[in-house]
């Protein structure tokens, strides 16, 4: 089955082609939906078989490269369409196809009645195609193809409702913003790739990584490669300073937010760092940068999330924050823990977004949580699954989020220092706070919506995916029970991934020895913090809602700053966007383009015009005049020849 892994790429492409070309002719939504979903469903089954086959093999035979054809061969560069089936890519492929399939099914219900139903499914399939290329690639170029492909699909899907208003502009502007910010990151990624090729003479993963073990390369070179790659990752995975596109990406339909902007695409950066772990491990300074950026992103995004009132905005900042955790894990060398969090986060964040979609659906496109309230009564399934996801993301044991998040916190304490742990725990507290604020304002308390709204539970095609994800959110963590609980077997998830990160971990120096007692103590502390935070928010928003207003008016400056997202968008506008616009308009366009380039061409044309108006006089169409010129020419030539004797 492992050799058939290319089907997981080909089938979504096929689905895209069928729905993309014939979709507008197929009037039946069911047919389109089944074509779109089944291609992903079959891909998931193929991946599942490949996974179990790999699981049954001894560790040293688990990696397989399925080579399809040679793509580019120029000089020393040899790139082929080859897919690498190994422990890491299989985990990612399972997440993408599995969660992707669930979201496809959900979309059949959510997008029901949309005039471009077929276009939506075509784009979703194209996205899975690109994402699978990204994950399964065995070289940087193919990874980059997928990397750009998912960026394109993200753009297409954010702007899916291109004629709708979004905040101050349109969804098309949000799509453009996402694309351009991503391009900035991609530029860094490209530079990293060039530097890798320059240093190691190859872009193939196995060659580069084995040469990284044997070649003697300076730390500075490693540092630059890692930094450039990390810039690429900050763009795709929405980290400081390039996270600004993700909140705006919420302009897209909610299943898109769940699939692309929560579960899969935004984790591509984490995956890429994990894949190139050996390079990052060789540049300890950059590892520290990754950890700092990660923890800062986690912290600041969480603070913004606390005050937002748009249900999807809160979830968007929550995603940015959780991605920060993943990068914290990468930065402290806990690659396995980061990938573990990618997986659990995919479950509960997709669930949260789909639950939010269900609510938005029921409330006729209303997204302001201040205008919700008491919805539990009307939509019990959505409320229950949302609650499970909120508990999972808050890190309440034994739900999945607890295991992955605590593992990251533990490694940041044991590998680097208590400061990272502390910021991480405060962020976890805030996470619990805003998640339960969201839950309580939406599903509990008094009804704050008008009588024109008639909330209702969503159809089964939407609630069943919610339940499946809820089950996964509950049990997803058990594959990675930490050593302290599972005893001699150790962490199964880590054992599975360890061959991938073995080289990187050998290079890293771990600090000191830490006892199991410490681990359990820290774990208990973080659970207590998260739990108390939930009780606090319950008290504030259910018992005495006035407290929230009092606090926000007491600290109105802080509140305003958070409400306006630290004015980062405004700052970027002021120091980057506007200068670029002004310079582009006045210097590049009006001067360089208008005066220099156009001026050059215009004066050249003028020169030809003037000179030809002179020569045009000779072309009067009179044969005799031509003959005269010819005779004069001959006479002159003869004269000249004679005189030269």
């Amino acid at each position, binding site marked *: 089955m492992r050799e058939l892994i290319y089907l997981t790429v080909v089938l979504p492409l096929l689905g895209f082609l069928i729905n993309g070309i014939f979709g507008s002719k197929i009037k039946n939504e069911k047919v389109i939906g089944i074509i779109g979903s089944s291609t992903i469903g079959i891909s998931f089954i193929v991946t599942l078989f490949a996974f179990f086959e790999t699981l049954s093999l001894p560790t040293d035979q688990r990696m397989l490269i399925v080579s399809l054809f040679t793509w580019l061969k120029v000089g020393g560069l040899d790139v082929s369409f080859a897919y690498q089936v190994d422990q890491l890519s299989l985990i990612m492929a399972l997440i993408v196809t599995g969660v992707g399939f669930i979201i496809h099914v959900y979309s059949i219900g959510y997008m029901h009645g949309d005039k471009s139903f077929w276009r939506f499914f075509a784009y979703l399939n194209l996205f899975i195609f690109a994402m699978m290329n990204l994950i399964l690639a065995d070289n940087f170029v193919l990874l980059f193809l997928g990397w750009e492909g998912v960026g394109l699909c993200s753009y297409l899907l954010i702007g899916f409702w291109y004629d709708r208003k979004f905040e101050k502009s349109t969804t098309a502007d949000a799509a453009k913003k996402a694309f351009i910010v991503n391009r900035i990151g991609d530029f860094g990624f490209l530079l990293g790739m060039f530097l890798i090729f320059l240093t190691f003479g190859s872009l193939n993963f196995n060659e580069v990584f084995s040469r990284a073990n044997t070649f003697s390369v300076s730390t500075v070179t490693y540092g630059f490669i890692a930094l450039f790659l990390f810039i690429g990752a900050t763009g795709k995975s929405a980290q400081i300073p390039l996270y600004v596109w993700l909140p705006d990406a919420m302009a897209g339909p909610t299943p898109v937010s769940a699939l692309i902007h929560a579960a899969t695409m935004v984790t591509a950066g984490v995956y890429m760092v994990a894949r190139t772990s050996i390079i990052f491990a060789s540049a300890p300074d950059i590892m520290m940068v990754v950890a700092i950026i990660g923890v800062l992103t986690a912290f600041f995004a969480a603070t913004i999330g606390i005050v937002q009132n748009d249900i999807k905005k809160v979830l968007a900042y929550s995603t940015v924050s959780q991605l920060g955790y993943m990068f914290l894990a990468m930065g402290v060398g806990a690659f396995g823990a980061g990938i573990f969090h990618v997986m659990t986060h995919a479950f509960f964040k997709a669930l949260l977004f789909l639950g939010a979609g269900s609510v938005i659906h029921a409330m006729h496109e209303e997204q302001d949580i201040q205008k919700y309230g008491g919805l539990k009564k009307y939509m019990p399934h959505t409320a229950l699954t949302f609650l499970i996801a909120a508990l999972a993301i808050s890190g309440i044991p034994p739900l999945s989020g607890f295991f992955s998040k605590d593992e990251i916190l533990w490694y940041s304490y044991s590998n680097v220092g208590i400061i990272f742990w502390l910021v991480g725990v405060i962020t976890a507290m805030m996470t619990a706070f805003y998640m339960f604020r969201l839950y309580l304002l939406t599903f509990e308390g008094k009804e704050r919506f008008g009588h024109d709204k008639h909330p209702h539970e969503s159809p089964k095609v939407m609630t069943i995916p919610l339940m499946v994800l809820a089950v996964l959110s509950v049990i997803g963590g058990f594959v990675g029970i930490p050593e302290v609980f599972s005893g001699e077997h150790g962490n199964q998830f880590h054992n599975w991934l360890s061959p991938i990160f073995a080289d990187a971990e050998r290079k890293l120096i771990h600090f000191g020895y830490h006892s199991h007692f410490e681990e359990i103590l820290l774990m208990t502390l973080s659970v207590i913090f998260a739990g108390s935070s939930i009780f606090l928010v319950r008290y504030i928003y259910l018992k005495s809602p006035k407290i929230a207003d009092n606090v926000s008016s007491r600290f109105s400056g802080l509140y305003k700053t958070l409400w306006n997202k630290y004015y980062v968008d405004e700052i970027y506008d002021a120091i980057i966007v506007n200068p670029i616009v002004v310079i582009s308009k006045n210097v590049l366009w009006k001067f360089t383009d208008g005066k220099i380039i156009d001026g050059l061409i215009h004066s050249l044309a003028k020169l030809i015009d003037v000179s030809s108006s002179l020569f045009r006089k000779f*072309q*009067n*169409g*009179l*044969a*005799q005049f*031509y*003959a*005269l010129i010819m*005779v004069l020419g001959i006479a002159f030539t003869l004269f000249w020849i004679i005189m030269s004797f």
Partner: protein
Amino acid sequence: MTITIEYYLILSAFMFIVGVAGVLTRRNAIIVFMCIELMLNSANLTLVAFSSYLGSSVGQLFVFFVMTVAAAEAAVGLAIIIAIFRNKLTVNIDDINILKW
């Protein structure tokens, strides 16, 4: 008095100049055409003169060729002039300036 080659050449040059002058100055296409024939024949005269002067028959041989070509040219040229006359009802070459764009 022997007639040396110079006489032939002078006569030939004179004929040629008359032909050129005719081609350049006259407006009637027929006359222009005849002047072209005059130029051709002046060239023929030169060829024959040199042939006799050098005691070689090559020049005479060329004359035959020139006469053949001139005959063909006369046929084609006159046909063109007739065709133009049918179209424009004139053979004044000042009015025939369609070479100009």
